[in-house]
């Protein structure tokens, strides 16, 4: 078992140190890792340093570039609307990822059955994530239009009047989450289905303890896919841009603006790329914290699940 909470996915629990005398092997892992590390260093060090450099300047696209130290960060952190947007982004992330995880898991459990025709249904369910987020956002925009959108029509037919999906603040938030959920639940489902392949049919037998079976047999197998799904959905949702930019335009007002949209409008539409970079760095810090917390949390719950699963094993 991996000893540090930071290590997740955990190391192969059976792995032991390599033979120290297998001399040729000592360099082998480094040889494997080297291409990626070299590539990443070569291609990320400069952009990272440069974007940090930009964030310390009053850096405008095609304009002035004056050193202002931490002024961008100071201005940002003292801006109330920035904190409101941070909180909004966090809200969207939490809601979307939670729903995607639960829904994705449910879909996977349903679609995991070995029944004729389910393969086709699975394939259909995967399609949303294959579409360009830009295209998805545009079409959800018209489906959610409060005047002629097809969802509006459904609501009206069901007797709810004409909901203003993208104008009413609460509905606008829900619409953004719904779009993300529609597009990315399939991602979670796919990862879960892969994880579920390891769980044997035997788990279905005992009806009385279905929940226990799920907790003690199914869930442990799913911990790695769950971590990967939650981690990457959190990272990507926290950077959510297209859906907001196109569906609500950040409106009403800027009440549904995410940090990424803010970084885009400030950095690009207003050409203040230095400030845009500062916002981006803030995003990076927040995601880092979120990711670290998630990894720690999941590492712990995985250990517990694995222990549960091992109860009864002889060794």
């Amino acid at each position, binding site marked *: 078992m991996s000893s540090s909470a930071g290590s997740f996915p955990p190391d192969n629990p059976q792995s032991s140190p390599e033979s120290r005398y297998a001399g040729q092997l000592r360099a082998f892992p480094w040889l494997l890792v080297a291409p990626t590390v070299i590539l990443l260093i070569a291609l990320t060090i400069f952009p990272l340093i440069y974007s940090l450099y930009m964030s310390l300047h009053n850096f405008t696209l095609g304009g002035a570039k004056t050193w202002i130290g931490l002024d961008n960060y100071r201005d940002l952190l003292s801006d109330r609307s920035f904190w409101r947007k941070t909180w909004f982004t966090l809200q969207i992330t939490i809601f979307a990822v939670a729903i995607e995880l639960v829904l994705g898991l449910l879909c996977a459990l349903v679609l995991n059955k070995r029944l004729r025709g389910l393969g086709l249904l699975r394939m259909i369910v995967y399609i949303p994530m294959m579409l360009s987020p830009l295209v998805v956002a545009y079409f959800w925009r018209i489906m959610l239009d409060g005047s002629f959108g097809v969802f509006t029509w459904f609501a009206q037919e069901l007797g709810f009047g004409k909901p203003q999906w993208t104008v009413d603040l609460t509905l606008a938030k829900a619409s953004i989450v719904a779009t993300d959920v529609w597009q990315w639940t399939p991602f979670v489902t796919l990862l879960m289905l892969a994880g579920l392949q390891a769980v044997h049919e035997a788990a*279905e037998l005992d009806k009385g303890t279905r929940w226990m079976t799920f907790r003690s047999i199914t869930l442990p197998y799913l911990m790695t896919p769950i971590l990967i799904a939650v981690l990457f959905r959190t990272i990507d949702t926290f950077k959510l841009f297209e859906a907001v930019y196109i569906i609500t335009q950040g409106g009403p007002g800027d009440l549904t603006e995410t940090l990424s949209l803010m970084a885009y409008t400030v950095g690009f539409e207003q050409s203040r790329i230095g400030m845009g970079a500062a916002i981006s760095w803030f995003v990076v810090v927040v995601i880092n914290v979120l990711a670290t917390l998630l990894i720690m949390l999941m590492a712990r719950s995985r250990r517990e699940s694995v222990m549960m699963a091992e109860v009864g094993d002889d060794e």
Partner: protein
Amino acid sequence: MSAAIPANQVKHRGRRFVWYLPAILITAVFAFPLYWIGSMAFKPARIVQNYPPSFRFSPTLDNFRQVFDSTYPDAMRNSLIIAVGTAVFSVFCATLTAYGLSRHNFRRKDNLLFWILSLRMLPAVAVIVPYSRMVRWFDLQDTYAAMILVYSIFNISFSVWLLKGFFDEIPKEMEEAARIDGYGPWKVFTDVAVPLVIPGIATALVFSIIFSINEFLLAFVLTQREAVTAPVALTNVFITTFGVNWGGLSAAAMVLVAPVIVFAVLVRNHLLRGMSFGQLD
């Protein structure tokens, strides 16, 4: 134990059919927007904003004609080349790395893994300007190579994490057996470990293709003429100043997603297997 349980399967067959209901329901929820988006491709422009929405209309192929008459097919070819290039390159690197990280304990491994992950965290806005600079230094602006390299950075992190999970599941005895059988570490990797994570590799390839075929912001900045990608062309051709050409956009989106679906169908069996190394399997 993986031993089949045919008796139970027979007994449960009747009951298992009830799974069709939720399965179809779920699919319907995901499929309706797909249907609606797809139907736009066949709708005449004048009725797109009708209310009540038009479910019945005489379909037109004009939108597809528009797509193929525009510069879009070139952009699609570019996108496909870049996506496949990115997928192959990044998954190749990621496979090596994930295996190295999974099989060998070296110090700072967790840091390395987290660093690789953190590359995904940077919003594109922050790196667009530095990348456009770098790409110009190396005289790679508007080339496939630049796009493949840049996209690989964003894709490698996911592939490494995903594949490490798959490699972790391989029983170590499988590889010890191969070593005892007389294979060196590289052959053990290529002949035993890699075949066992084919599902993971297929999944990583699909996600990599999905990411790079759909990415907009970086492509918008780093390409302009020769290597223009499909999403950029979409906004140039179908999202016009005075409105969205819904039919064209839908037709173009369908044309773009088709190869991804085809690829996913081709590797579908691998997408659904994986992470399954029961003790005796």
